[in-house]
């Protein structure tokens, strides 16, 4: 999986990055090439980083409740930049009720609190293009 590049990113103003960092490290330990953006990025900055680094996966983490606004925006911007094959996944404090809407907007899977990192690894392996 060394040829799979993952961008772990934190959109919005949320500073809770324990989960993002733990997931980033677990993905790296699983053999992916991982780039972590740090906190407080705009969707535009994330899409641009994904393009520059030519990643296969964008993993978004958000715990502030702004996911319904910011996650779909990242997907739109990625498409606008011609990155149609990139796998976008998300995680954080996200109510069950919001997940269908996020999936319809192009977030392929949403991982909620308590998810083992191995599950994220398996999902990427099975779905990355």
């Amino acid at each position, binding site marked *: 999986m060394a040829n799979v590049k993952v961008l772990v990113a934190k959109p*919005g*103003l*949320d*500073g*809770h*990055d*324990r989960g993002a*960092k*733990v997931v*980033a*490290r*677990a993905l*790296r330990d699983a053999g992916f090439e*991982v780039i*972590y*953006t*740090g*906190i*407080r990025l*705009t969707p535009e900055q994330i899409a641009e980083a994904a393009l520059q680094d030519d990643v296969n996966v964008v993993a978004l983490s958000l715990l*502030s*409740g*702004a996911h*319904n*606004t*910011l996650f779909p925006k990242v997907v739109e911007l990625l498409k606008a930049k011609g990155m149609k094959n990139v796998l976008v996944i998300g995680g954080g*404090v996200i*109510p*069950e*009720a919001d997940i269908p809407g996020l999936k319809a907007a192009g977030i392929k899977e949403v991982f*909620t*609190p*308590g998810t*083992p*990192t*191995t599950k994220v690894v398996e999902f990427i392996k099975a779905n990355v293009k």
Partner: protein
Amino acid sequence: MANDTLKTEFKRYMDEADAKCAKFPERPNLEPNRLYTPLDIEGFDYEKDLGFPGEFPFTRGVQPTMYRGRFWTMRMYAGFSTAEESNKRYRYLLANGGSGLSCAFDLPTQIGYDSTDPMAEGEVGKVGVAIDSLADMEILFNQIDLSKVSTSMTINAPASVLLCMYIAVAEKQGVPAAKLRGTIQNDILKEYSARGTYIFPPKPSMRLITNIFEYCSKNVPLWNTISISGYHIREAGSTAAQEIAFTIADGIAYVEAALKAGMDIDAFAGRLSFFWNAHNNVLEEVAKYRASRRIWARIMKDRFHAKKAKSMMLRFHTQTAGSMLTAQQPNNNIVRVALQVAAAVMGGTQSLHTNSKDEALALPTTESVTIALRTQQIVAYESGLADTIDPLGGSYYVEALTNKIEKEAMDYIKKIDDLGGAPEAIAKGYIQKEIQDSAYKWQMDVEQGKRIIVGVNKFTQEEEPPKNLLRVDGSVGKLQAKKIADVKAKRDNAKVKATLAALEDACHKDEKTNLIPFILEAVRAYATEGEICGVMRKVFGEFKAHTAL
């Protein structure tokens, strides 16, 4: 029994017990010894190590009467959506036995953006209440008498602005600043290392903090000018010893900054306060609180030569651990919180926030907040835990654990001193790396079953998605935009411009120029938070983090 005899007896006893254990293996991965005896606290000296409550080194508590005098302040952290909605929640909490307020602000407010700023998109009113100008603050405290209530505000980079808004609301109520009681978090160092709501680079940030210390020592003398916070360091994944070590190291940096600015230690040290996490391991937490008091007292006395007892007292607020709430089987969280409350109370906290059962999923509903508040009341009135001071003092295990955590923390503090102090250690990424390593280890322990979380990696069950979660709808951003437009239409814009220009001038001068009076003038003129922080952003620049994995 003399120690030698006890040693022999202890060995005989343990050998026999080990033989039994061969048949019934012990649970793996436990850190403490199976049993503690006086052998584990050899050299224990009551007067030197503990003292009496209210006396140096304050191991047993900061007041001579503790909860026999009055219970801790039951202070529920709350705020969401608009000032109107949050004001309702505050009045509900006060009417139901809450004894102090604690304001949660949304992220744009915490990072100095108005609700209309493009950076605020999607975040307005989400994790706390949106405050854009004095007009919102007036609504937030509508019908709440600021001469009676004490208010804690979780605000850091723009702490000066929100404090000034609070002072200005009080003025309108006819309450002088000298009577105001409460706390601003105002702890920027842990924002860089663990929490993330920084705005300015370290130097101007430290100036704002020492400006606040100085201004309050003269004008708002009952105000806690900082809440030096380990809570978020623990939430970010640190251990108990790291939580107090990294926080006390931050505390040392603030004291040094104030001394460097020319203040006398006893003029400000008594208003420093702390903020600890209440995690799941009850006895470890109790030992942590006790160790933190002893460490701080000794540092203030021996290193900084404080004279007043008040300067040596580590007074602290506690919040139960948000990161220990599970999204699975959320009712179990009520039990976790009750145990965390037990730890905080046996550890002698001055005030306490209890998390609600649904907070791994969303902000809490009124019903779940009520259970969380009632949990504190049950511990206070029914459990007996608050009936006597430091009830675990003298326990072989708790004393040994207090010593152990103290030693681990002091080793870290020494290491941070060697790196040049907390700001340097943070700039080098040392503290962040230590926290990340602990967080990763915790997660791996859970995934490998070395650490059990009920409902997550053991005793799991299929369940329906929870219903009745609190939702903040997207209209809050629009409401706030309208309010800002109204404020700007009504206020004297020439005056706003003049106060902001005066603030900008003052920012350019050195740290001896106290910025607080300038910010207060701008606030009184209804300058928005974004306008005030914008001026400071322009002069001071913005902090950019470098994040390593």
